[in-house]
């Protein structure tokens, strides 16, 4: 396999699209859930704000600094959790970890754009980049 082919597996065009035009970039003001998380081995940071009402994630925004994988993953995650119940969001986070380990995801899960991140499983050094936003979300939706 040529180098560019292998790279293309990692950097699928939908990833580059989310990296260059991130969705839900920004900060939700007032009484919302805030999570700051970093990846101490590499310096990636995410500032995630969530609006959770009646057990449903109404809105999600993020700010952050990091590589294409971590920032596109954050963009995709915010897109995906909006409108989901806390329980569903946690189920997705759990399945995202499975996908990063190269395992099959549950049948009831549709990752949509985030499916493109499945190639990260073949790049062990980059898995933590991809999971940062999901870990932040996991912590956020469980905040009281």
């Amino acid at each position: 396999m040529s180098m560019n082919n292998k790279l293309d597996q990692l950097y699928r065009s939908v990833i580059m699209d989310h990296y260059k035009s991130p969705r839900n970039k920004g900060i939700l003001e007032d009484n919302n859930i805030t999570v700051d998380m970093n990846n101490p081995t590499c310096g990636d940071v995410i500032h995630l704000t969530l609006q959770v009402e009646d057990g449903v994630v109404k809105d999600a925004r993020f700010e952050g600094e990091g590589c294409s994988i971590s920032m596109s993953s954050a963009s995709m995650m915010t897109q995906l959790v909006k409108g989901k119940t806390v329980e569903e969001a946690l189920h997705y986070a759990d399945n995202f970890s499975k996908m990063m380990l190269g395992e099959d995801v549950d049948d009831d899960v549709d990752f949509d754009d985030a499916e493109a991140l499945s190639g990260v499983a073949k790049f062990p050094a980059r898995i933590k980049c991809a999971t940062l936003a999901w870990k932040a979300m996991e912590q956020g939706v469980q905040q009281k």
Partner: protein
Amino acid sequence: MLTNKIREQFPILKEEVNGKPVVYLDSAATSQKPQAVIEAVSHYYETSNANVHRGVHTLGNLATDAYEGARDKVRAFINANEAAEIIFTRGTTTSLNLVAQSYGMMNVEEGDEIVISYMEHHSNIIPWQQVAKAKKATLKYIELTEDGEITLDAVKAQVTDKTKIVSVAYASNVLGTINPVKEIAEIAHAHGAVMVVDAAQAAPHLKIDVQNINCDFLAFSGHKMCAPTGIGVLYGKRALLDAMEPVEFGGEMIDFVGLHDSTWKELPWKFEGGTPIIAGAVGLGAAIDYLEEIGLDNIARHEQELVAYAIERMQQIEGIQLYGPLDPARRAGLITFNLQEVHPHDLATVLDMNGIAIRAGHHCAQPLMKWLEQSATARASFYLYNTKEDIDQFVEGLKMAKEYFG
């Protein structure tokens, strides 16, 4: 220097990474090991392995001779006055922690100051933060010039009569800057402070002379200078070490043990509790022999040539930002940089696909990253086995990454 002949001596350089011959540009993180060092470690285990300083038996004597022989080599390598001033540790981090936990905790008092610089590695920051917190002392930072250098005026601006310890890197692991540690030591001493030198990035590349620098302590690691991981050195002046308490207690380091009190062995063994890293020390001795045979001056010259060549070629790439002084004569063999529009992690992955190993991230120097106003950077570092062809491939990789992400 015959680089091709040198490359032959490093077995790992014959390996392939992602189907490409490995181009190893991460020696500032850890260097590769020559056959001579690998063999010295094997040979020790095959012919002389036993515990040191205790057996009456022959193997015990052979092991002790090998271990103490390595200490003599280290003494000569940094021109210490006597072998008793050489303490074997696990590495630079352990060495600096030893100074902080022993000398620091015994001598720093409330209201005192510890002075470090903005370009320190975490291992030369956090041990001092801990002392400062425990003793209610102040940790102060020497400012850097725009080029990432330390001026003596900047040192004088921080060091006062309240300063008890000054601790500065000999060479920066991010900027590559070589610091005027001898002159900084003079300033420290004029105020009654001790001078600690973090030589982790200097020992592999520069001829170190602790008596000429007149530093009080100096720390370095074996693994960055062709030796195995897990072995490092703390040099200290005898008078200071004699007055210091050990930080690890147990076997090997004691003289008499009573039920409620014990006394310590003499230097350097009182700081070497437990069975030491014998094979590591043997490997370090072999690494010193290896480097001295090639000549540290030759290695430094070779690296300067590589740095000059790399700077020249990298500067031709549009959107590249290099950090640290641009004069190759004023820096160690590494270049930290960023490529516009390509995050360092993405860059490192693209290069890895080409078999090229570089470092990406904050390089264990978060305060410096803040000073650079970067959350992450990329770093290519060079050693005696690197060639201009390595740099050509690296530059091609940079161009490829720029195209891919541009």
